[in-house]
């Protein structure tokens, strides 16, 4: 026993060392296929591709219907779904990728696209021949890094102010003109709403936890979160100004105290101020209007963010809701490309999916579904159409490391709300934190 244990251990250690250095290196860069070995299609030309996405039950069901439709139209190709919620999705994708098991077709997001593109884990869709002729060039640019198309936007969203007209009416406050209102007006209106609407109803929900608001303000001032070469493009003044708005709103009680703001931030659309009829305004992605309207039971409106005519230019922009990408190591690039093509361009897909992955990026397809949309989604479509002519450009793909920005934003904004940092100090800390994240 003793002897065997010792001998076995020594051999075990050697094996482990070998595997540790070898296996990780191999699997991380070489191309094992996305499909599980035992799932590989047989010799009869049957091909199986794995499609991974995040979301909740509604999306899973419609996506399955879309997959069924695709399989019906493309006999010989089987699409295996692989879905989970947002947080789980990225852990799972990273782990599978580390082991060389990247799914064939993956959904990507702004904050992670650079990370995956930089290691050539996702393929050049232009090379694979995905038809993108009906997608506007500006939209395609949002998935292009160094002239390579790593992801095609499924659809677009805009970051917008959602307002509850009923609370405005109850409080006796007029809805602002969203093409002309300034950031000062916003603070002012929120304060009046809180006063007019009575106990437990607030003017607005704190906006400082999401960098998108900062992006809009920066763009209004001719700056940008990130430059096209992946540097920070913000001045300290702009960041400080951004945090100052929250402080002004707390001072005039236009928004809840720090503790409540933190709680509402964690509560999602359903538990938000708007969702629980406890607040008149809040900044959200346009595709969340449906969820907010359902939760609140009211007809909510979309407004542009304040300050659109206050500074140098407009700041509103279209953000790709998510991207379709294809694994660079897929064994079935052709079929995968065919599937992505289908997802992007088939009107029947759009009819099932509607705006669940953003307002479709394919403009012809977009037109075709307009009549089918719910009231809330029609509002979104109208709002986006109105925005079209005023959007100057869209921000470039955020650089590697930008997935950390949201956490940094949340942390520093909380410090500001609790009074631990002045807006000036917060701006310094923010720029330093994000700089380190994208630099290292």
């Amino acid at each position, binding site marked *: 026993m003793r002897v065997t244990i010792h001998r076995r251990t020594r051999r075990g250690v050697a094996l482990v060392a070998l595997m540790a*250095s070898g296996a990780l290196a191999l699997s991380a860069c070489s191309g094992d296929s996305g499909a599980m070995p035992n799932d590989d299609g047989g010799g009869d030309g049957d091909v199986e591709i794995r499609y991974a996405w995040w979301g909740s039950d509604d999306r899973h069901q419609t996506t399955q219907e879309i997959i069924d439709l695709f399989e019906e139209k493309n006999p010989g190709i089987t699409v295996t779904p692989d879905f989970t919620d947002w*947080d789980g999705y990225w852990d799972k994708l990273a782990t599978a*990728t580390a082991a060389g098991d990247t799914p064939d077709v993956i959904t990507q997001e702004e904050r992670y696209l650079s990370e995956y593109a930089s290691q050539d884990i996702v393929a050049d869709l232009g090379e694979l021949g995905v038809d993108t002729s009906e997608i506007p060039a500006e939209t395609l640019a949002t998935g292009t890094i160094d002239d390579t198309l790593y992801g095609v936007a499924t659809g677009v969203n805009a970051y917008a102010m959602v307002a509850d007209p009923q609370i405005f009416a109850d409080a006796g406050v007029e809805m602002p003109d969203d093409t002309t209102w300034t950031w000062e007006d916003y603070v002012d209106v929120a304060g009046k709403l809180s006063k007019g609407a009575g106990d437990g109803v607030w003017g607005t929900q704190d906006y400082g936890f999401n960098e998108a608001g900062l992006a809009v303000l920066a763009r209004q001032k001719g700056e940008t979160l990130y430059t096209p070469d992946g540097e920070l493009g913000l001045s300290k003044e702009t960041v400080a100004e951004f945090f100052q708005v929250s402080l002004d709103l707390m001072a005039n009680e236009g928004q809840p105290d720090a*503790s409540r703001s*933190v709680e509402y931030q964690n*509560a999602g659309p359903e538990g938000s101020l708007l969702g629980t009829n406890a607040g008149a305004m809040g900044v959200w992605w346009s595709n969340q209007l449906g969820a907010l309207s359902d939760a609140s039971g009211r007809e909510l409106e979309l407004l542009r963010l304040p300050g659109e005519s206050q500074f140098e230019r407009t700041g509103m922009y279209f953000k790709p809701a998510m991207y379709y990408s294809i694994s660079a190591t897929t064994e079935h690039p052709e079929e995968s490309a065919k599937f992505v093509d289908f997802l992007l361009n088939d009107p029947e897909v759009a009819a099932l999916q509607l705006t669940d992955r953003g307002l479709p990026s394919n403009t012809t397809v977009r037109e075709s579904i307009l009549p089918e949309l719910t009231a809330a989604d029609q509002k979104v479509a109208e709002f986006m159409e109105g925005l079209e002519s005023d959007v100057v450009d869209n921000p470039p793909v955020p650089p590697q490391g930008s*997935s950390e920005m949201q*956490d940094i934003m949340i942390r520093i904004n909380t410090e500001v709300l*609790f009074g631990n940092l002045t807006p000036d100090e917060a701006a310094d800390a923010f720029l330093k934190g994000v700089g380190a*994240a994208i630099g290292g």
Partner: protein
Amino acid sequence: MAVIHEVARTRRAATEHRKGDGRAAALFLAPWFVGLVLITAFPLLASLYLSFTDYSLLRAPGWVGIENYTAMFSDPRFFQALKVTFTYVIVSVPLQLVAALGLALVLDKGLKGLAFYRSIYYLPSLLGASVAIAILWRQVFGADGLINQVLAFFGIEGQGWVSHPDYALGTLIVLNVWTFGAPMVIFLAGLRQVPTMYYEAAAIDGAGRLRQFRNITVPLLTPIIFFNLVLQLIGAFQTFTQAYIVSGGTGGPVDSTLFYTLYLYEKGFGSFEMGYASAMAWFLLLIIAGMTAVNFVASKYWVFYDD
């Protein structure tokens, strides 16, 4: 018993066949050993190797020596994570153990319907890590939650217990004590293992209940108390789920619940610094192993075994 022992000793002296149990041990340990070599060892040693690399999950690892370890010591958030975790361990482990032992004694015997109460009290520990929990906590500990409604009834203005940096960690400690179910069950099982004859003998000697508790229950329960202490300590150092849920994964508000493992997870999967995360993990292992070793040494002075 004494008689058996006497006989046993005579027999043993006569036969003199005992050496070691190597062969039997090999058999009994075979599954464990196979598991150790095939399943446990590789990931363990791989992570040790990775802790000396710049592994990012998406890229093959490159050797960087002790860079990750030195970087840890100039990372203020690393120290914040250590502070949070140590505070939590030192406060919550003893509290939870006392609660668990206390409840186990109350729910042990002598009252009708104890099975029901036991199950009820275990229920919170069944909840696990479901996403629903975050909502439940807000309902109870939120600024407008149940606790503050009760406090308001007494004219006290409460706080956002999970959303205020000064109180969030304390609230998590309370939450941990609240899920005392697991150690309680182990204590209950331990209490059942105490042979009743000891109590009977003690009762004949005229020992009161307190003395029985101190002289029989506690000594015979020490292996179980020790077990709970060691395992709760190991578990508390690795606390993740509660903090992840309550803070939405950020360790907030303002890093007040930035548990060590939460930070490590954030580094590994959020920032793609798996090398750094592995280094953190092995540093944690050293801490835990050290603590556990101290525990084992100390146990010689207070834990009673029958062998």
